[in-house]
C-alpha cells in the first residue's frame, strides 16, 4: 500500500464494535472491570485510552515503528523522550534546533544533570568530535528550524550505532508522508503534531514513535508515569487531521516551491532557504532521504528595518508562531520560535533580525504572491 493510502487506511481507523468509520471519542477517565483478578484491556485513561490507542497505532504504522505515543504537546513528547536519560548523561544536538527544544535542554534538563552540546549537524565529522564517553544520544531536526539545513540521516544513525547510542529526530517539518527516518536506522521519531499532522492550527499535540519494542517499553513507562498524555478529543481531532495529510502536504509543497522561486527573484530579498531550490547545499542528501521539500520557506530581507516593515504589511499570512496549518503563517524567529535561544547562540547560527520564516498554507499561491508582492513593494 502506498503511503498516500496508508494515511487513510492503517487498519486502526474503524471502530471494531460498531463499524463507525470515525473512531469514537472515549471521554472516559476510568473503565469498569469485570473481575478483581484480572483487568480488561483498559483501566485508566492515563495508562491507555481506546481513542488514543487508535492514534498511537496509526502514527506507529505510518513511521514504521514498534509503537507510538501521544503527548499533550510537541514539547511534552520531546521532554518525555529526554526523560530516558539520567544525571551525568550527555546529548549532542543540532545547533539550529527549535527554540523550545533548546530551552528545555539548556534550562531544564541541565538542572537535572543532563548536558547538551550543540553542533552543526550538516557535518558528520563535527558530530563525531562532540561525542564523549558519556554521550547517550544524538538529537536532530532535518530540515532544521528555521534555516532548513539538511542532516544525512544514514550517516547519523550509522555513527549512533557505532557508538552504541540513540539517534532521535524531530520529524515535524516532513511528517511520515515525506520522510520516514526509522527506515534509515534512526531509533526515535518525535513530532509536534500541532503542525502538519494536525494541520489546522487548532490543537496542541505531540507524538513519538520508537523503532523497537525494548525502547517502546521504556517510553511507555515514562508516558504513563509522567502522564503528559493527549486527551481523547484532541486524539480524535489529530486523527481527523492526518486523513488529509497527503492532500494538504502536496499543496503546501507546491505553494512553497512557487514562493521560494518567486522570492529569489526579488531585489528586497537577500537569501532564500528552501531545500527544493537548486542552489540549496543539502538538496542532494535531502532528496535521497525525503520525498519532497516540505512547506516551509525562510528568507532574509536586505535589512532588519525592512524586515520589520514587511512583517507589518503582510495581510494574508497570519503573523503568528507555529506552522504547518492550512492557513499561511509568517513568523519572526528572533522574537518568536527562537526567543528561547541565547542571543549569542542565535547570532552564531544565523537566526538574526533580517530572517523571516513562512509556513506556506494551502491558499491559492497566486493570492499569497500578490499579498507578499504588495507588502514588499511598499517597504
Amino acid at each position, binding site marked *: *500500500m*502506498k503511503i*498516500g*493510502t496508508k494515511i*487513510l*487506511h492503517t487498519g486502526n481507523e*474503524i471502530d471494531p464494535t460498531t463499524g463507525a*468509520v*470515525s473512531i469514537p471519542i472515549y471521554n472516559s477517565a476510568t473503565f469498569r472491570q469485570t473481575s478483581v483478578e484480572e483487568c480488561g484491556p483498559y483501566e485508566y485513561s492515563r495508562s491507555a485510552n481506546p481513542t488514543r490507542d487508535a492514534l498511537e497505532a496509526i502514527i506507529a504504522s505510518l513511521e514504521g515503528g514498534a509503537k507510538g505515543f501521544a503527548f499533550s504537546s510537541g514539547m511534552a513528547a520531546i521532554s518525555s523522550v529526554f526523560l530516558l536519560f539520567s544525571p551525568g548523561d550527555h546529548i549532542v544536538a543540532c545547533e539550529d534546533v527549535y527554540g523550545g527544544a533548546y530551552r528545555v535542554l539548556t534550562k531544564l534538563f541541565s538542572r537535572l544533570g543532563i548536558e547538551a552540546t550543540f553542533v552543526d549537524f550538516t557535518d558528520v565529522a563535527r558530530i563525531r568530535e562532540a561525542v564523549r564517553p558519556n554521550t547517550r544520544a544524538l538529537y536532530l531536526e532535518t530540515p532544521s528550524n528555521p534555516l532548513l539545513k539538511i542532516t544525512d540521516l544514514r550517516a547519523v544513525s550509522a555513527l549512533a550505532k557505532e557508538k552504541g547510542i540513540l539517534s532521535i529526530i524531530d520529524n515535524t517539518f516532513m511528517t511520515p508522508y515525506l520522510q520516514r527516518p526509522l527506515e534509515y536506522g534512526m531509533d526515535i521519531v518525535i513530532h509536534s503534531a500541532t503542525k502538519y499532522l494536525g*494541520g*489546522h*492550527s*487548532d490543537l496542541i499535540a505531540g507524538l513519538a514513535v520508537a523503532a523497537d519494542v525494548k525502547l517502546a517499553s521504556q517510553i511507555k513507562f515514562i508516558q504513563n508515569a509522567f502522564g503528559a498524555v493527549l486527551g481523547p478529543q484532541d486524539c480524535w481531532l489529530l486523527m*481527523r487531521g492526518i*486523513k*488529509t495529510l*497527503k*492532500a*494538504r502536504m*502536496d*499543496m503546501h509543497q507546491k505553494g512553497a516551491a512557487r514562493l521560494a522561486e518567486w522570492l529569489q527573484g526579488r531585489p528586497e530579498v537577500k537569501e532564500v532557504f528552501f531545500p527544493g531550490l537548486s542552489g540549496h547545499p543539502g538538496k542532494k542528501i535531502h532528496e535521497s532521504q525525503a520525498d519532497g521539500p516540505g512547506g516551509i520557506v525562510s528568507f532574509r530581507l536586505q535589512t532588519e528595518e525592512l524586515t520589520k516593515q514587511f512583517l507589518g504589511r503582510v*495581510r*494574508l499570512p*497570519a503573523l*503568528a508562531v507555529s506552522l504547518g*496549518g*492550512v*492557513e499561511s*503563517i509568517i513568523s519572526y524567529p528572533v522574537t518568536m520560535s527562537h526567543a528561547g535561544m541565547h542571543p549569542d547562540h542565535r547570532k552564531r547560527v544565523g537566526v538574526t533580525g533580517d530572517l523571516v520564516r513562512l509556513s506556506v*498554507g*494551502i*491558499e*491559492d499561491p*497566486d*493570492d499569497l504572491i*500578490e*499579498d507578499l508582492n504588495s507588502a514588499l513593494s511598499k517597504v
Partner: protein
Amino acid sequence: MEQGVETMKTSTMAVQIGVGRDATGAMSFPIYQNATFSHPAFGESTGYDYSRSGNPTRRVLEEGIAQLDGGARGFAYSSGMAAIANLLLLFKQGDHLVVTEDLYGGTFRVIDKVFVKQGLTATYVDTSVPEAVGRALRDNTRAVLLEVPTNPLLKVADIRKISDMAKGRGILTIVDNTFLTPYLLRPLELGADAVVYSATKFISGHNDVLAGLVVVKDEELGKQIYFLQNSVGAVLGPQDCWLVIRGLKTLSVRIDRQLENARTIAEWLVRQASVKKVYYPGLETDPGHCLLKAQARGFGAMVAFEVADRRVAEDVLRKVRLISFAESLGGVETLITYPAFQTHADMDPSERERMGINDRLLRLSVGIEDEGDLLDDLGQALSGGEEES
C-alpha cells in the same frame, strides 16, 4: 485578513474562513458552546441573544458558505434533510414543485411522504431535458428543485436555461449542489435563487459530522429563510459548525485529489468487460459532459456503474476491502453504495427500474487514497473469482 475577498480564489476563501474574526487572534475560531447571551443593558443586545437565533460559531460558517457561493446569506442546519425541509417550508398548500426525477431518496421521501400531505404537489421530470421542465411548469408552480449532477445517475441540468425560464414566471430555482460544492459549481452565478447542501458530504468531507447548509442569492429571500430557520429551529450546534468549518479549509485539496481519482476510475471501469455501463460526466462520451464543462470547474467524484446482474453487484459489495460498503458520500475515504437498496429504497421499484436505478447499479464516492490501490481493490472485487481468505 483584509485582502479584497471578491478577487480571491475559492480555495483561498475556504482556507481563510474565520481567520482574524476572533478578538484574541485565535487562528481557529472558537466553539461558542453557549445557549444564551447576557445583555449589556435593558434594550441592548451584543447582536447575540439566544443560540437558536444566532451563534458566533454558526455565523462564521454561515457567512463563510455565503461568501463561497457568492450569495447574500447562508444558513446552517442539523442535517442536509433539515436544510431541504426548511426550504420547502417556504411553500404553502396548493403550491406545486417541479423536481429532478432521479434525486436523492431522502428528498423524494420528504416531499412524497411529508409535504404532499401538507397539500404540496410535485411533478418529477428528467431535468437534463429543459423542455421537460418547461412542460411541467404550471400556474401554481413555485419552485424548480434540481440536483446537479443527479444522484445516482449523474445527469446534468442546464441551470442557466432553467432558471431563465423560471424567473420569467416568478418561480424559484433551487439547486442541491452537494456533489460539486462551490469549489466546482456556483449555481447562484448561473441564475439560481438558492443553493442547498448536505454538508455531511464533500463540504465537511470526513464522514464525521451531519450538517446541512442553504445559501440564498438575495437578502429578501434570506429574511424569509432566516424566519423559518429561527422558528423551526433545526440549527446546527456549535461543535458541528466548527467541524464543518474545519472541513471546508481542505475543500480544494480534497476535491482536487478526488477528481483525479474519479476520472482514473471511470476511465478504467469503461475498459472492464464485467462493467456494462459507466455514468460519469467527466467522460467525454457522457451525455452531460459538455454542459457540465460549461457550468462547472470539474466533474465531481461520484461515479456510478452497472454490472451484468444482481449477483455480480452483490459479489462486488462483498469483496471490496479497501473501499467501504456504506451509505453517504463525499468523504476522504472511498465508499461504495447500492442505490436501489440503500439511498433510493423509498422510491417505487418500477419507477426506479425505468430510470435505471436497478439492482445492477453501484455508486462510488471516490476518496483521496492512492489511485493504484483503489484500482487494485476494484479489480479484485470485479474479477469474478472466489474470495481470497
